[in-house]
């Protein structure tokens, strides 16, 4: 079972989470403008990376927040987790040790990732 560092709650076992597949696949602003091939590429095609892959994770049995994780699909090491709206970190700059059990929690704040505003 993986250990996953929720950016809002800290390190928790995998069974609190649900994986939502590859991250950074932006939904087109105007899906109606896409032809079938472009829509199919968005809907069905995934990179299936061997190595570091950005994934969406949902803390479904926890804070209900979705966040991103860089997971090495070969080793299952999760190099870093980061909040929605943040750019994919450069793994070279990531200092988190894989599989570390430090239990530090991220700051629990109500930030609208893109808009930057407070939640109602």
């Amino acid at each position, binding site marked *: 079972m993986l250990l996953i560092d929720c950016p809002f709650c800290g390190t928790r076992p995998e069974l609190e989470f649900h994986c939502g597949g590859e991250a950074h696949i932006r939904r087109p602003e*105007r899906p109606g403008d896409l032809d079938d091939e472009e829509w199919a590429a968005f809907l069905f095609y995934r990179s299936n990376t061997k190595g570091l892959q950005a994934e969406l994770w949902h803390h479904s049995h926890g804070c209900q927040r979705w966040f991103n994780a860089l997971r090495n699909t070969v080793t299952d090491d999760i190099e870093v987790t980061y909040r929605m709206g943040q750019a994919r970190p450069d793994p070279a700059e990531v200092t988190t040790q894989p599989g570390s059990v430090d239990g530090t929690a991220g700051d629990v704040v109500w930030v609208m990732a893109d808009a930057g505003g407070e939640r109602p």
Partner: protein
Amino acid sequence: MTQPNRLPGRGRIDRSKPIVMRFNGREVPAYEGDTVASALLANGIVHVGRSFKYHRPRGIVAAGSEEPNALLDIDRGSGRREPNNRATVVEALDGLVARSQNHWPSLAYDLGAINDLVSPLLSAGFYYKTFMWPAVGWKRVYEPFIRRAAGLGNAPVEPDPDEYIHQHGHADVLVAGAGPAGLAAALAASEDDTCRVIIADEQAEFGGSLLHDLTSTIDGKSAAAWVAEAVARLGTRDNVRMLPRTTVAAYFNHNHIALAERLTDHLASPPASLARERLWQVRAGRVIVASGAHERPLVFTNNDRPGIMLAESIRLYINRYGIAPGRNIVIATTGASAYQAAVDAKAAGLFVTIVDYRRRDDIGSERQRATQAGIEILDNHTIVDTDGRTALSSVTVAPMTASGGVGDAREIACDALGMSGGWTPVVHLVSQSRAKLTFDERIDAFLPDRAFQCESSAGACRGTYVLGDCLREGHETGGGSAGEAATVEGTCGTSFAAVRILPTNGGRARDKAFVDFQNDVTAKDIRLAVQEGFQSIEHVKRYTTTGMATDQGKTSNMNALGLVANALELTPPDVGTTTFRPPYTPTTFGAFAGAARGDLFDPARKTPMHDWAADKGAVFEDVSQWKRAWYFPESRETMHDAVQRECRAVRQSVGIFDGSTLGKIEVAGPDAATFLNRIYTNSWLKLAPGRCRYGLMLKEDGYIMDDGVVARLADDRFHVTTTTGGAPRVLAHMENYLQTEFSDLAVSLTSITEQWAVIAVQGPKARDVVAPLIDDIDMSNEAFGHMAVREGHIAGVPCRLFRVSFTGEAGYEINVPADYGLSVWEAVFAEGRHHDITPYGTETMHVLRAEKGFIIVGQETDGTVTPDDVGLGGLVSKVKEDFVGKRSLQRPDVVDGRRRQLVGLLTLEPDVVLDEGAQLVANKSEDAPVSMLGHVTSSYMSPNVRRDDGAEPGRSIALGLVDDGRARQKSRLFATTKDGFAEVEVVPPVFFDAEGARANV
């Protein structure tokens, strides 16, 4: 009774505590500290079972968890019976009952032994080659016969009376194995008292090989004294948790380790409060694997007779248990370590002969030790055969000639044979951790190479066999500084020649040289598999079943691998190893299940009205984790009768239904309407507060995901309902879009499923029942019509009152805070008594909605159904530029494809109720493969739908998805039934009140 083979003055058993266990009805006296195996051997019982395939007599081979042969049925009384226990790991207890397995009528006379005589028919893969003819033979004759013959032991039939628990453990260092390397590692690691150390060992006592080592000294102390001191020192440290009788069973991701601890099996009368086993889940900062090594058997003709054991195990039984496994022992070896067994046996007063396959020049200093002890050594000799039916009586040995042939054979009388073909490091755990293995030719073994997770190995499991080196390695791996190593006087050494099979002079067809004792796989089987073209070790394993028994080939894998390599003329690393999988040794189902049994298997979610329904005699069904009232039988009613009665009552008067399980999400915020507009297919911007709308939700692929009524309570507040099972999925879906794609919207989502109890009151008299309980809402049809929502009070309790209908009747869904659910339900029911109110369950709800053709997501839909497929195309907004799934509704296969569409199905025989899931075909006599046109999604007997002649109500109705279904109106199809086909007519999917007038009164 005596213990004829007990040696005086030796062993770690407690001679002041005699016990008596039973084996096959016979009393077996023993001492505390014995295992079942040592107790049997002490009493001269060497024949303890029959083999799996050939039913050959078998004895005890090993002394530890690697035992392949001595599998016994262990009965602890009171329903505590378990087959296939290794006699070598079960601790002997007063009153314990052990029985041998796999024979009929008795252990001594087993009719199954006929298999041994016909063994040429039972070679590798025989079941793929025989039983081919006649074609019906397989099902009628062979399969039933094989099923009866297959399997080891008899599964217990009574429920397990014991409790099992799970516990999380936290360790900076977890040490797997408490032999010399493990103890040294734990001692070093726990020097720092902030370092939490767990050390676990599968045996009852810590110490591993040191417990039977009477030769070595460590810093001038005996091995046993060193162990006692080490254990005592660990015991004084608060940062150390010592777990004996605990198998480090599995190594998962991110240093997640599972340990199986046996808590009560060694107690004659365990306290009732104690769980039998505890499964530990440990997240270890670092794992030190010190799991030791297994001795390899030698492969030679008839190497499986009772009395033939591993040489080191003979040494162990002599030194640790004070037992003579035989009085006249032959040690057959290709290496040095067995010489120590011979020396120790000799010291115990037993007669010993060594048969060494190696040439004199290849034998090291161990030769001198044995000679000094007065032991005869036959070097350059092979074992040609053995004799003795249920106990070994002699071995036949022969010298190897200069040309590599086998010379003149001679018999040596003996009652025990210790074999040693070298050592195999136990790399199971590191292999489970996904570390790479590398082959070390020097010691003919696979060793841990590059670590994959934070772990390291120490001692024999990484090929370090010399005691001093084990201690030093353990010490350093545990974090101790170099140079503090102990001074060690050791044993005979461990070098060996890797010999895959001992040459023999004969070759009778029935001769067998066993590689895998537990699955009865012989060297011949393996050669045959290679001959037949199996080259990959994984294929050879599956074809011959070598290494696939419950011991996972602990003693056999390297011999099998070596034979395959020889046959293919490859080296072992070229052949590779099979994959090691958890658990390391068989682990009870109880340990895995823990407390999750019976009522605790899965959480049961109950509504506030659950007990009321139970009191009324309701039968419940499971819907996801919810317990839902299924139907309410009166007196001796059948389910069918109850459902028909409930269905009639709702249409004729009024029914009451518990809808609390419905998923509920409150969507609030200034952008709530915009958000719903993007999530649902239909439009929400113009829905006025106080109004409800049925909403349809798609996944991005355009297929229906969920549905439900949504009420607008205020401009910025919606009460969303979902299907019972879909609630968590829908919330996650909404949160996903809100947090990732639509994060510009100010909206909050709150699950309110558990906060609101829902009481559905449905039927022509619904208003008459509900209105008298409410004084702050205008209940008239004009003021509060169908699909409206009001907030007010019912029986004094705040409520959200929905005028909605899933039955087609006029009706209300009364939402009240869950704590008031039961009291409001009782108030409604009391009022309803004036109108003959009838409680109804989910089955009636299903029938009533099917009469109206309302879909159930997950029943009419299966993740490949679009709104138009189920006739709900009208709910898809043509105006909205975008919503989740909209673009996919323009996919070519959705627009142009011949889609399966929802239709109604009426059987020509009105009493025939179709099976849900039944296939629909146009032509029932078509040759296979028959063209499937669709399937039945819902099917019920309805008491309300009239027969075609209009005479009397009551006929079967069904919904189905059919290719191009709407174009097939009035056509005839055939639905498959248990006996053949039923003819059906395709009709519109609404059977009752097609114009929908009844909901609006």
